[in-house]
């Protein structure tokens, strides 16, 4: 699933490892989500949204509807 994780991360000058540490997951997990190869579960998507102080829809794009 396409997402804005890389942009949001860059805005905060976080590396993938920084984000992984904050989410309590591995760096490979962040990379897989960021590149759209792995879709996170709803709890992890909410955790991302809380961390970036935004909504899930603002991070992940519903490919059926295009970016919100």
């Amino acid at each position, binding site marked *: 699933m396409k997402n804005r994780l890389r942009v949001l991360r860059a805005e905060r000058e976080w590396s993938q490892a920084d984000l992984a540490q904050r989410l*309590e*997951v*591995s760096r*490979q*997990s962040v*990379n*897989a*989500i960021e*590149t759209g*190869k*792995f879709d*996170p*579960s709803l709890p*992890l998507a909410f955790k991302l949204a809380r961390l970036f102080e935004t909504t899930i829809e603002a991070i992940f794009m519903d490919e059926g509807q295009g970016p919100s």
Partner: protein
Amino acid sequence: MFCSIKSPALRRYLIRVSIMTALCFLISVVAALVFQFFLPHDPHGALAYLAAVLPALPVIGALVYTGVYLAEEKDEFQRYLLVQSLLGGTGGILAVLTAWGNMEDIANAPHLDLIYVYPLFWVFAGISYHLVKTRYR
């Protein structure tokens, strides 16, 4: 030794498996000595069944620990990778055993002892893990 591993669940899994491996080694040495010096060299009946079943116990233990690790691992991507690997291992060993069984029946291939099934399962799971992981690089 395990301090560099970031996942607490993986660290616990490796510690459990290491302790179990050491215990199995110790128990197998003691069992070998008992069989060598105190029991008949050609066990039969219940004793033979017991001797045959004993090596399966650490296999069951290792599989249970793998299940516990899957339940404890909070990183869903790592869980996904492991589940895919275990499916690959299961598929690989089923395919090989089916083919080998047919080769034994039809082409008189040498007999494959079932004791090799478990290590072969992990060989296939390991190969599968690396194949799955390359998809996410």
